[in-house]
């Protein structure tokens, strides 16, 4: 039997949550933008006749940041990258590019035009990520706005409204209207024990009326904000009929429909003009001779006065010696690379789990979304594809690249399919949002980050529980953050408390450089204590 909850009970629930400030703070700590500031390490210029040497492992955002800053200070820098390209997870896919997924390599066949690209890894830069923006400026990377939330996109759930997609604006307007009505009714209730005075209640009522577009009686009866059924300009506009709250509650996508402008995607968002890898290209312009490709590190050995790295290139092994090593190789791959680190350090390297992430994209034969008033933004669905992203750039051009699936933290389901099955699945699920989808898209590409060569993951997973780091996890994290033998630094977003953002990758490199400088000036002894 269904249990009905009265309005008073709902209010009780709200009040209970409100009473517990600690709960609110906890959720802030989880979902909200962390503090970031720009404080580029001030590295004393190296003596040109005796330049310290640094070998950087991995040419992703973290490795390139370390290489650039150290080079600017006159250090001798070499970057070793296992893949045939720089960027690591920062990867933009265009015509002719290889997607080096183990067991499912693909060559992208999109039309060869500047706006026809797909950001297979990072795609958004929040305005609060000031260090990413700092480097964009320093490296001459042109930025444009990225549109994350767009109320003209769709919410689709097989359990809601017979699976019919509904415009986000319609969903949001109805959901907000009913929520405002529920709140308004309870606040006029005399049982409230007068926690608010009359003036405060009136102020709140005015606000609720506006938030929910309630009528004089504080009831929600539909709103033109949800869209017109007909008319609107030359004729009177008629609001779409209200959708019952009960219908909207059938989907779990509530927070997706209403909450996209919050947390990390709340601030203004940007993207580099022409693809996220413009950032990488910017770094490489300043590091024209330092980066070596197709060189796979196979051994990292601490020595008394430095570090020795062995790598393989075209079947031949080479050895490099340097004073310092900045290593961004994912820890779950480092555990397969010969080393002489301490048992503690090895234990810490082995702890973070590999994350999963899956994305796919199509070339659209025409920009069909624009005919549906959609310019940028995300449609949400309860199907495994989860999201459809419309490009915020290339407006009114003939074609465009549309993201056809995005599951961050999952996607194994897709990984187990053949390429053909993955494409067909994306089409079948996309058809529920855009009826004619099948005939509008072509040339699909797919990326399972947990299967990408030299990566095998999307971002390090330190926490086993959502409630934060355990003491043990904190200990392992701190162990890995400290340099091994004062010579070897693990860097990358993997050694931050906010993985899966380029900002974190940059800050990890800054942290390591600053730590190195502190130890140097503090006269710390090189090598391992025995």
């Amino acid at each position, binding site marked *: 039997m269904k249990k009905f909850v009265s309005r008073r009970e709902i209010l009780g629930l709200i009040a209970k949550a409100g009473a517990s400030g600690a709960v609110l703070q906890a959720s802030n700590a989880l979902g909200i933008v962390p503090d970031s500031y720009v404080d580029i390490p001030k590295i004393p210029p190296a003596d040109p006749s*005796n*330049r*310290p*040497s640094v*070998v950087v492992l991995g040419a992703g955002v973290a490795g390139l940041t370390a290489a650039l800053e150290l080079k600017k200070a006159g250090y*001798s820098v*070499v970057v070793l990258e*296992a*893949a*045939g*390209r720089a960027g690591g997870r920062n990867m933009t896919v265009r015509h*002719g590019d*290889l997607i*080096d997924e*183990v*067991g*499912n*390599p*693909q*060559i992208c066949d999109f039309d060869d035009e500047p706006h026809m690209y797909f950001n297979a890894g990072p795609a958004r830069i929040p305005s609060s990520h000031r260090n990413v923006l700092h480097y964009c400026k320093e490296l001459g990377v042109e930025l444009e706005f990225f549109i994350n939330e767009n109320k003209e996109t769709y919410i689709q759930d097989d359990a809601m409204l017979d699976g019919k997609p509904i415009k986000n604006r319609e969903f949001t307007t109805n959901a907000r209207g009913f929520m405002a009505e529920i709140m308004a009714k309870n606040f006029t209730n005399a049982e409230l024990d007068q926690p608010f005075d009359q003036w405060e209640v009136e102020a709140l009522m005015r606000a609720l009326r506006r938030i929910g577009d309630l009528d004089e009686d504080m009831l929600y009866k539909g709103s033109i904000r949800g869209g017109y059924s007909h008319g609107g300009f030359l004729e009177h506009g008629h609001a779409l009929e209200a959708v019952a709250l009960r219908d909207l509650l059938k989907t779990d996508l509530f927070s997706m429909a209403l909450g996209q402008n919050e947390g990390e995607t709340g601030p203004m968002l940007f993207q580099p003009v022409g693809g996220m890898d413009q950032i990488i290209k910017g770094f490489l312009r300043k590091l024209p001779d330092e980066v070596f*490709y*197709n060189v*796979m*590190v*196979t*051994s990292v050995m601490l020595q008394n*006065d*430095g570090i020795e790295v*062995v790598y*393989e290139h*075209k*079947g*031949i*092994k*080479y*050895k*490099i*010696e*340097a*004073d310092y090593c900045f290593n961004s190789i994912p*820890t*779950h*791959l480092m*555990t*397969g*690379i*010969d080393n002489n680190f301490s048992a503690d350090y090895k234990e810490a390297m*082995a702890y973070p789990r*590999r994350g999963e992430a899956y994305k796919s994209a199509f070339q659209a034969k025409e920009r069909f979304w624009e005919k549906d008033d959609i310019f940028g933004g995300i449609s949400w669905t309860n199907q495994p594809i989860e999201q459809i992203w419309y490009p915020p750039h290339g407006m009114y051009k003939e074609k465009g690249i549309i993201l056809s699936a995005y599951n961050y933290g999952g996607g*194994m389901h897709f*990984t*187990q399919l053949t390429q053909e099955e993955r494409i067909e699945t994306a089409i079948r699920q996309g058809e529920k949002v855009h009826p004619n989808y099948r005939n509008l898209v072509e040339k699909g590409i797919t990326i399972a980050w947990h*299967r990408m*060569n*030299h990566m*095998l993951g999307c971002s390090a997973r330190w926490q086993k529980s959502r409630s934060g780091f355990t003491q043990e996890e904190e200990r392992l994290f701190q162990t890995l953050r400290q340099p091994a033998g004062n010579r070897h630094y693990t860097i990358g977003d993997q050694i931050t408390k906010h993985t899966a953002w380029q900002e974190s990758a940059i800050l990890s490199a800054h942290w390591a450089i600053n730590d190195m400088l502190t130890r140097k000036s503090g006269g710390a002894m090189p090598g391992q204590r025995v």
Partner: protein
Amino acid sequence: MRNTRLLFAVALTASIAGLSSFNAYAQQYAAVDTTNQPLSNEVCATCHGGEGQGNPVVGGPSLAGLEPWYLRKQLENFRAGIRGSQKDYIPGNEMQASVARLSDAEIDDLVNTIAGWKVIENDHTIKGDLSNGEALYANCAACHGADGEGNEALGAPGLVERNDWYMFRQIKLFKSGYRGVHPDDTAGKLMRPSAQALKSDQDVNDVLAYINSLDR
């Protein structure tokens, strides 16, 4: 302070054989026309570690030291889906996907290359009761040899210098029917009853501790 010697890298070993076979592996990409693509050619090492020494976190075992006949058999088994194709066994899936498109010639090349990899001492991660292990191992010796040296005629690989965490998992896979059940897996079916005879995890640990003691 040490001077920069970075750009004067020293060639250590020139395993030219390795070069050709890895390139052969890379040719599987030819199916999607990768002309002029910079191919990364160390795909096995991504999961199995530099020089195939094994990576416990990814789950790829050490390959260095595997008998060529056994290695070939396993690559063929994975390719044919005889091993690793159950959808709910992720490590097996990953390995299966990695070799699903290999040609016979590429398998030949890989077997030759891996034969050249040097065995690196494995860390022993399992503790157990050696005397119980030795008693249990008496059953294994019939096929895997008294010193764990293996027996090609029976299709039983050597068990020395192998990752104990990997062997632990394989025994569990044999027990639970993820390995050694496919109709075409004659060798696996030979092994399965012995795994089932190990009643507890402790027994498995004990016998592996004993097998570890045969190393080096």
